[in-house]
């Protein structure tokens, strides 16, 4: 990220906005229920939308009859595939494989076939129920093995159409049901094996998981003929804007998206989700329509990829790692969604942050007849870290090494190559893991049935580094920060306000951060990949510095000094050491009037090169955690005694928010490791589509102790040396739990670690020991 227009003064001393636990600026309105989410909004003339979805996993539509629905009370419009003949109805940022509604074929249970707009929700629901559809049923591939078999039903025909934002170079054509493959090789695998090496070789299974942001996907759409307006709970408004513009043949600026508060995102609201169908329905109804998913619908809108993985790690008998060979198959469901990027990130995470003589990674993204899989917090890393780290621990046990010592010997050091041509390691991993181990009481005497585990990983973070922001200062020195990062609970509005307040030396109470509105808010690529503080925050810092430059310029004239570096900025005033002028006095002087405002623009773009995936990442997010668990060997029930995670953030802008991020990610990691699992029948039916059957962690699942260690080495590329956080713990916790089980001899190769699975494994291990 290139140099700003004036020197990045270290203003930390003068103003204490950064590094302080400022109250969330949106806290009171959220706690009091005043904060509005999309489902709380009303637009004049608004109708209620209901989507009619497929009940079968794979079939050709032979009859679709919506005439009863159209004639029902209150129904204004029913959208079907044949309404879309005037546009190219396919979308998908990675692969354009998905029609707005099914055209002639359905590929998963829950795929939208039609949508109703009616005056009340009850009317819309009743009308949707009356829709008649008949199919010619096609063979179903509801799991990876079936989809990869030689005689598998092929889920997509025709050529692969690359989406507008996959960012992964040339997309090769499909190979059967494999829609994308990523490979990464170093050294020569064949030449490094030797007879006395330790070899660990297993197959691993990772479950499909539901992100469950408590607020489901929701969107209000209005199509006026020349303009589309959306109020959407999307994480990436600017990517959605451009995808909707393309779909409906409009200039980008003719699509306007407002993003109010999101009731959680975790990746489930990244990229385009319900916006196309809502916009198409509004176009047909010629009135605004609101669609709010039920939980069962959001579960089939996006989920986390389930995975099969085969990994072989070799090491010398003293524990020095030698090679790793990994094959990964990720189930992306019926449409690619973010599958290709997840696949690449999983491939990157596969070798872990270790020094190798040779590695080979082949990761495949596979279509099946299940709901599309996309982003979920720490994708790829969560998939692979427990696999790789459990192998590192197995080697340590066989080499007779302590897992911590094993890592000290093999972990990469700062500046070493993580991925060829990519960013070298920008963190102190050994320092971090030692802190975690210490907080777990590493090396203390073991209690019965209790084990401890640690895990280390890296996550390619930051996505594409393109963000812009504006900072406006009014004549009373009130500041508004216009930035596209969407507030989904991570606290970005507070953090952005802190950054601006810090630079401008003004109190937090004078800074506001309104919601993203693509008409007024400058472009920001996305909210995800732990990028907001680092990348968008940098744009805010630069925009604030640009305002400061304007203030200094006028102050220089007032004080009659040519070199403004002789002036000091203190608490909202500028002084030459003798006289002092407040910002609002300076602004008044500048315009000779009571009005006017200062506007600063900040921009972040790739420093060098193209900002492509291979050159990245913006920073390596550290995924380090430890856990102590207790196993009831009679029931297989696991209790998490304590967890510890590292937030290696460079500089915490708001330490309390950093801790909350890690705590939330820890609980999600516990859910992912212990019990969360979306289940499909062989016919592709989703078996647990409600929170009665799909359980997420409650307060009773909270560990007795949850410890977040904030590490501030000032080594991030973001403002004040910061770098993002919030995902690492989710990748690291399942791995730490698996290793804690391994610590007491229960090596697990399949998640989630349900009591049944753990109990069976204990019996298996006892059998093996008996037969020895």
């Amino acid at each position: 990220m290139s140099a700003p227009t004036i020197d990045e003064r270290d203003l930390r001393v003068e103003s204490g906005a950064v590094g302080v636990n400022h109250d969330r600026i949106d806290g009171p309105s959220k706690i009091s229920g005043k904060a509005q989410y999309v489902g709380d909004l009303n637009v004049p003339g608004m109708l209620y939308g209901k989507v009619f979805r497929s009940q079968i996993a794979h079939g050709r539509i032979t009859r679709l009859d919506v005439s009863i629905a159209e004639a029902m009370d209150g129904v204004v419009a029913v959208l079907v595939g044949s309404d879309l003949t005037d546009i190219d109805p396919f979308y998908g940022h990675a692969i354009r494989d998905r029609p707005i509604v099914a055209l002639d074929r359905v590929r998963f249970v829950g795929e939208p076939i039609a949508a109703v707009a009616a005056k009340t929700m009850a009317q819309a629901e009743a009308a949707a129920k009356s829709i008649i559809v008949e199919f010619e049923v096609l063979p179903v591939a509801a799991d990876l093995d079936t989809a990869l078999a030689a005689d598998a039903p092929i889920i997509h025909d025709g050529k692969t159409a690359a989406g507008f934002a996959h960012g992964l170079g040339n997309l090769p054509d499909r190979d059967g049901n494999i829609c994308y493959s990523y490979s990464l090789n170093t050294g020569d695998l064949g030449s490094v094996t030797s007879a006395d090496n330790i070899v660990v070789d297993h197959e691993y299974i990772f479950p499909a998981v539901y992100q469950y942001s408590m607020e489901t996907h929701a969107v209000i759409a209005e199509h006026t003929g020349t303009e589309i307006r959306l109020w959407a709970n999307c994480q990436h408004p600017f990517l959605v804007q451009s995808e909707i513009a393309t779909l409906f043949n409009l200039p980008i600026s003719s699509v306007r998206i407002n993003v109010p508060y999101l009731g959680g995102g975790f990746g489930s609201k990244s990229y385009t989700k319900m916006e196309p169908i809502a916009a198409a329905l509004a176009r047909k109804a010629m009135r605004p329509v609101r669609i709010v998913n039920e939980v069962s619908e959001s579960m089939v809108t996006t989920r986390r990829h389930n995975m099969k993985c085969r990994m072989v790690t070799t090491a010398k008998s003293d524990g020095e790692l030698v090679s790793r060979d990994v094959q990964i198959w990720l189930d992306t469901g019926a449409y690619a969604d973010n599958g290709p990027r997840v696949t690449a990130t999983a491939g990157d995470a596969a070798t872990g942050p270790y020094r190798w003589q040779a590695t080979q990674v082949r990761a495949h993204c596979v279509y099946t007849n299940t709901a599309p899989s996309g982003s979920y917090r720490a994708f790829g890393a969560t998939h692979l870290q427990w696999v790789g780290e459990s192998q590192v621990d197995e080697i340590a046990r066989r080499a007779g090494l302590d897992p911590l010592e094993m890592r000290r010997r093999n972990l990469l050091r700062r500046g070493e190559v993580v991925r060829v041509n990519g960013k070298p390691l920008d963190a102190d991993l050994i320092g971090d893991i030692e802190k975690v181990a210490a907080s777990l009481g590493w090396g203390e005497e073991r209690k019965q049935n209790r084990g401890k585990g640690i895990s280390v990983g890296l996550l390619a973070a930051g996505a594409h580094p393109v963000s812009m922001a504006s900072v406006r200062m009014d004549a009373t020195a009130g500041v508004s920060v216009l930035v596209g990062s969407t507030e989904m609970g991570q606290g970005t509005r507070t953090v952005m306000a802190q950054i601006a307040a810090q630079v401008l030396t003004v109190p937090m109470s004078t800074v506001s951060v309104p919601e993203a509105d693509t008409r007024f808010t400058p472009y920001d690529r996305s909210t995800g990949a732990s990028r907001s503080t680092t990348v968008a925050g940098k744009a805010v810092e630069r925009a604030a510095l640009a305002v400061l430059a304007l203030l200094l310029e006028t102050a220089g004239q007032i004080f009659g000094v040519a070199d403004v570096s002789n002036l000091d900025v203190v608490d909202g005033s500028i002084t030459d050491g003798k006289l002092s002028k407040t910002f609002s006095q300076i602004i008044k002087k500048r315009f000779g009037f009571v009005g006017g405002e200062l506007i600063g623009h900040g921009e972040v773009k790739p420093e060098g090169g193209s900002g492509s995936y291979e050159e990245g990442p913006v920073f390596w997010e550290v995924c380090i955690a430890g856990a102590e668990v207790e196993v009831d060997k009679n029931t297989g029930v696991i209790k998490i005694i304590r967890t510890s995670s590292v937030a290696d953030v460079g500089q915490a802008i708001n330490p309390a928010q950093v801790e909350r991020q890690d705590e939330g990610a820890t609980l999600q990691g516990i859910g992912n490791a212990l019990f969360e699992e979306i289940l499909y029948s062989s016919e592709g039916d989703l078996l647990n589509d409600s929170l009665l059957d799909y359980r997420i962690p409650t307060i009773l699942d909270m560990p007795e102790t949850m410890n977040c260690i904030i590490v501030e080495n000032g080594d991030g590329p973001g403002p004040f040396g910061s770098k993002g956080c919030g995902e690492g713990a989710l990748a690291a916790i399942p791995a730490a739990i698996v290793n804690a089980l391994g610590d007491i001899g229960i090596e697990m190769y399949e998640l989630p670690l349900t009591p049944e699975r753990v109990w069976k494994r204990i019996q298996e291990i006892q059998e093996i020991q008996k037969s020895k």
Partner: protein
Amino acid sequence: MSEPVEKFLCVVNGKQQIMEVPDNTLLLDWIRTDLGLTGTKQSCEVQVCGVCTVLVDGVPVSGCTTLAYEARNSNVMTIEGIRGTAFYQRAEEIFMRHSAVQCGFCSPGFILTVFTLVNAGRKLTEHEIKQALHGNLCRCTGYKSIFEAAIEVINSEVGLGK
């Protein structure tokens, strides 16, 4: 095909309202859509998550699984009715201090649950508080901050049990 509609009275947050909805209308939909009180949220719709919690005659119920009809002729209290109370002021201050809010979708529900616990007037142990909060889900915070905030609110209002 409009369904026959009967009229009932219902006091919501101290204000008399006429309930005039089809008899299969959920209490949550009546509150959110007809009355426009959107502080009460909707998520799971199966009485698991607690974001739809409202009080009917002082008893917490899930608006998603309660018919509006069942609340006829009764006193309904939502977050909008609690907002102005002294209890709320203290609870908000404590929740803020613990940064026990992230996306906020679960927050009004937690406040309602804590309000009910305080109103019961009984000293609760930390264990009992945890048990009582387990009907409210939060996907963001990891619960720790909410748990600590709830303990502090309850302790300051009625004291903790041993």
